[in-house]
């Protein structure tokens, strides 16, 4: 039996006396598209920070393909094949769209700290960056400095950068936040195509996106997983309805 692509075992995180994550256990299999939902303040982004290495867990374990990664730094986890996007757009403003994507591909292609070869000569990086640009629909904005892009374009670039390293596991933090209906649909298509054969974990608030994309859903409330399962079972779950979905329909 192969290990899950991503496994959390009894994960907790405290900030001083305040416990944000109170014992989360999840096993996400390879190829799953796993959505994490929950009310604001439930700790979803904190969970992403823990998984991607930005924060250290207070206790518990995080395992990537069976290998323990808790306590590792972001660059180490990234090299192991886990990539994430950010809730607040976190791009390289003065570099062009193309250069943003190019930088994202370099480590995984083995370019490392190469100072003896010309960047232009690296066909593999150039091809991958161009392909990515087309995939996220920004090929026509290739040479525009990223800081000048429109909001939705920056969100698309955000996803593109996360994809650059060809990761096995992709974490997307509210990828469609602030987008129009049409932009959301395009982004969902992009995510669906880009994560074919990969493992996706995403935080989202838009229910249509979640129920359209996710193969499994976990509900995070006050730092604990309230329920986890297929979309249908979550939809039917009484507790979840009360804690989260129920409130939304009443609001």
């Amino acid at each position, binding site marked *: 039996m192969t290990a899950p692509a991503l496994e959390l075992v009894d994960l907790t995180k405290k900030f001083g006396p305040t416990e944000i994550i109170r014992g989360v256990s999840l096993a996400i299999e390879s190829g799953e598209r796993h959505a994490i939902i929950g009310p604001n303040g439930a700790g979803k982004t904190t969970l992403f920070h823990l998984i*991607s290495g930005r924060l250290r867990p207070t206790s518990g374990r995080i395992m990537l393909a069976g290998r323990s990664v808790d306590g590792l*730094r*972001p*660059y180490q986890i*990234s*090299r192991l094949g886990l*990539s*994430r996007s*950010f809730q607040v757009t*976190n*791009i*390289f*403003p*003065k*570099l062009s769209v193309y*250069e*943003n994507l*190019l*930088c*994202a591909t*370099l*480590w*995984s292609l083995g*370019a*490392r*700290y*190469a*100072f*003896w*070869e*010309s*960047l*232009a000569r*690296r066909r593999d*990086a150039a091809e991958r960056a161009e392909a990515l640009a087309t995939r996220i629909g920004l090929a026509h904005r290739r040479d525009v400095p990223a800081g000048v892009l429109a909001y939705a374009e920056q969100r698309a670039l955000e996803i593109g*950068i996360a994809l*650059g*390293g060809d990761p096995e596991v992709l974490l997307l933090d509210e990828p469609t936040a602030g987008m129009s209906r049409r932009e959301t649909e395009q982004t969902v298509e992009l995510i669906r195509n880009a994560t074919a054969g990969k493992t996706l974990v995403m935080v989202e608030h838009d229910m249509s996106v979640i129920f359209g994309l996710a193969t499994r859903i976990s509900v995070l409330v006050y730092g604990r997983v309230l329920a986890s399962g297929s979309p249908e079972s979550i939809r039917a779950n009484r507790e979840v309805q009360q804690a989260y979905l129920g409130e939304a329909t009443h609001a």
Partner: protein
Amino acid sequence: MNRILRFLAPWLATAAALAAAPLVFRSNFALTTMSLIGINVIFALSFNILLGQTGLLSFGHAVYYGLGAFVAIHALNAAVDANLGLPLPLFVLVGGLGGLFFGYLFGVVVCRRGGLVFSMITLGVGELVSSCSFILRSFFGGEEGIVTNRTGPGPFLGYTFGPQMQVYYLTAAWCFLAIVATYALTRTPLGRVWNAARENPERAEFLGYKPETLRLYACCFAALFAGIAGALSAINFEIATSELLGSQESTLVLLMAYVGGTGHFVGPILGAALVTYMQIRLSDLTDIWQLYFGVAFIGVVLLAPGGIAGWVAMHVQAWRRGELARLLPSYALAAPAIAIAAVGAVLVIELTHRLFAHAMGQSTLLRIGPLALDAQSAGPWALAGVLALGGGFALRWVWPRVRQAWGAAASGRKGSAA
């Protein structure tokens, strides 16, 4: 064929300019100045690897410059004493390697943190090395420094490097090499990731790059080129003193790179040339030239954070869009206002200086060419006041027009930020 020519053109032009300069400016003073400019260009380019490329502001960069000079000079003296017969140009590389060695040694500690903390650490390390230079007298030579004779190694390809002309060509050759090398560095994967780290150090880590290692690479390359510049300085002036690694030198290179413009490759080159020249010229004209440098620096930080290169680039873009003509009328109005205000301000500063210098026993006369203005009489003050205030008011009246013209020309583009 056309493309290759277009690519090579700026490089050929630079090489040609470097080679032809002594034919135009022949005096010994000019040759020494140009040599110093060449040295400072390398120094400023090395600094910009840290600031412009990687976003790391160092307040102690002269440490590698100075150490490169000392390593080169000791190596030179030792080689001549041992009759090794190594040619002089080699010792420039030795200085560079010396800089690289210390860049790595200090870098391992200094590069642990980034951002503002990095800057403060470089300040601390700079002071540390500076203080040590007074303690380690045998290496640093105490107050007199260490001297050498650049003709010591004997002729290389027929050149003794005694005459300033030959030293200039040595400097110019290394300068050209350094420009090519630092430019090539910007076109590598490492160079691009440095830029990413500059823009968003956090995200760069999420791309798989260890931040400390990126910084260390930047530190090492910057120290390498600073060491080369230091070695050339030691050869040029045949002396190395602990001033070379002091805070004044660190401040100067920061000034050169920043005023030139850190956002463009040519910025530090322009800045080094301008600041070196101004330093030599201004220090002849007035005692308080450092004050003017400081004020100019603050002016650049406040008003033109992209430096000279940024300012020129802005206008080149406007010219490409055909909008440059629209700016000219407002510039024509602004230029005299700025000139008058500047003259007035300089007069006020100089008169003030004269007035207070009097308390320390100096003359109160401000000499400008054939004129002698007495700081103790009202006349010159009235003149200075009128010019400064008049120019200031005129500028305030004209400035909205300039801004308007730019608004119309730029249409949506934000100003270049540092």
